[in-house]
């Protein structure tokens, strides 16, 4: 299979996921919160393609509606770590010296923790809310952004166009912001795409152990957790479909990231 085809497929899948995230509530065939006591734990059928859960809610509708929450948690976390991480990383890479040492030490310290465990600790300290899941996921992703941004900035610090800008008398901060930073963006985009999948997995993992998202809300991680109890008695559809949705979303972002990396950096092709 050609590499381009994989990228095209993953990109279409990406558009589909975003589409579900934006318009999920209109596409869902049933109300994701509507319970039906007479219609509980039904296996997949024509009326309920993904079956119904222990409260008679339609699993398909819940999986569709959950897309928005999962995507927005991951997207806000990734956006936060991108903004803070690239600011810290480019300062460290551009000025070096003490900035570099302090920022490097900070990012090493985060990396000294098992990251998922650190996220649990942060959520415990800040409080058990969806917002804090976002902050925790953003913090544990920071080192990756700092690292990429620092490396990309420091190789461009002495580039010809930077020297030219200096000769024109442009201030250092403006050189960093207008000349160097835009050039570090392509590798950062690759990092974002690879990181999105991981952020989704991480947030779903946290809600699987009961943090953040609360019970009636539809979210893939908590849906798998709710379905887990029914696995041992054979009701597989409760956990399979949200789990598969999660897996496909992560898979899609990883493929997209690999494809983008090949475009941006052909030398590192795998």
């Amino acid at each position, binding site marked *: 299979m050609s590499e381009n085809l994989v990228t095209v497929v993953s990109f279409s899948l990406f558009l589909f996921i975003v589409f579900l995230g934006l318009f999920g509530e209109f596409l869902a065939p049933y109300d994701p919160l509507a319970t039906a006591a007479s219609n509980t734990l039904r296996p997949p059928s024509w009326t309920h393609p993904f079956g119904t859960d222990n409260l008679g809610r339609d699993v398909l509708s819940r999986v569709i509606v959950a897309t928005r929450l999962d995507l927005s948690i991951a997207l806000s976390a990734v956006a936060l770590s991108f903004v803070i991480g690239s600011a810290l990383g480019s300062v460290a890479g551009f000025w070096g010296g003490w900035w570099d040492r302090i920022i490097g030490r900070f990012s090493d*310290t985060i990396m*000294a923790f098992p990251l998922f465990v*650190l996220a*649990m*600790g942060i959520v415990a300290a800040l409080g058990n809310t969806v917002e804090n899941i976002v902050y925790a996921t953003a913090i544990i992703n920071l080192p990756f952004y700092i690292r990429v941004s620092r490396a990309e900035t420091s190789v461009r610090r002495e580039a010809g166009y930077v020297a030219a800008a200096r000769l024109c008398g442009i201030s250092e901060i403006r050189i960093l912001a207008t000349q160097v930073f835009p050039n570090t963006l392509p590798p950062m985009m690759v990092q974002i795409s690879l990181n999105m999948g991981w952020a989704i997995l991480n947030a779903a*993992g946290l809600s*699987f*152990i009961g943090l953040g998202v609360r019970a009636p809300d539809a979210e893939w991680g908590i849906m798998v957790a709710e379905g887990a109890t029914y696995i041992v008695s054979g009701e597989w559809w409760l956990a399979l479909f949200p*789990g598969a949705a999660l897996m496909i979303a992560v898979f899609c972002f*990883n493929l997209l990231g690999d494809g983008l990396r090949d475009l941006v950096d052909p030398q590192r092709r795998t």
Partner: protein
Amino acid sequence: MLQAVPSIFGVIVISFVLTRALPGDPAVYFAGAMADKESIEQVRQALGLDRSWVEQFFIYVGNLAQGDWGQSLKTGQPVTEELLKRLPASLELTFIGLGLAVLAAVPLGILAATNPGSWVDHICRLLVTAGVSLPTFFTGLFLIYIFYYLLGWSPSPLGRLNILYLSPSHVTGFYIIDSLIAGDLEIFLGALAQLILPTITLGLFALAPIARMTRGAMLGALSSDYVRTARANGLSKSMILLTYAFRNASLPVLTTLGMVFSFLLGANVLVEKVFSWPGIGSFAIEALIASDYAAVQGFVLSMALLFITVNLTIDVILAITDPRVGLEE
């Protein structure tokens, strides 16, 4: 040894900040929901919350050094005791999972690198891409569904040992070792049966990065000058592959193992929940839900220290394997 000191210091600072970042009055949190004014005041004194930040930090470090990591609200026992009691269960899971992953991933990576473009290579690439996308808790649940519910091969996924058996007398805390020491084969097999599914779940999770690294490192080593020279000198295939190429390729793989271990410690929490495994992960989840802060912080801190220890061990092994890596650096 020395390079671990700043990491340990950083970890302690962050965990100190986390304990003090609690919204509201930390003393109220650490004393628990049932505490009255007097016990809150007591906790405030013990944590030194009435003093300056610097003093508080030194008190915190002093308490940690003396093994006083606070009391678990739920059980009333010291946190260190609770963690140490459950640590073997988690380590048994993590290490066997990592071992399985290495045993499967390293040969797979080598085979894929020696036959690029072959079906082994394609399987390797598929596993690597799919492996990083698999939510651990999801893999675990479906292994349970297939091997427990559908096929009935595996025992019920509830803990380390069937309730019919008594746990073996405590020597190391690892059931499969303790039962062998006690000479009880039945308990050994029972404990082993319980271990199979959770360790395979962890192994599948760890397999992808190790296989990817092995494949990449072996490809690099096989295209190097020294392998070409070895080939030109007519050395045997296995000699070139194992002694020349793999010994060099094992260095980046070993370095990756540190990172994989860190991710495994996180995945372990999820797997313990899925398999009702009575390890520190389950303990931490219960503590999180019950807002038992001292227990959660103790868990985070102990996992970070464990991770630093593992990284240090890997550095030492690297220095032994590779004469170019100096110990003094």
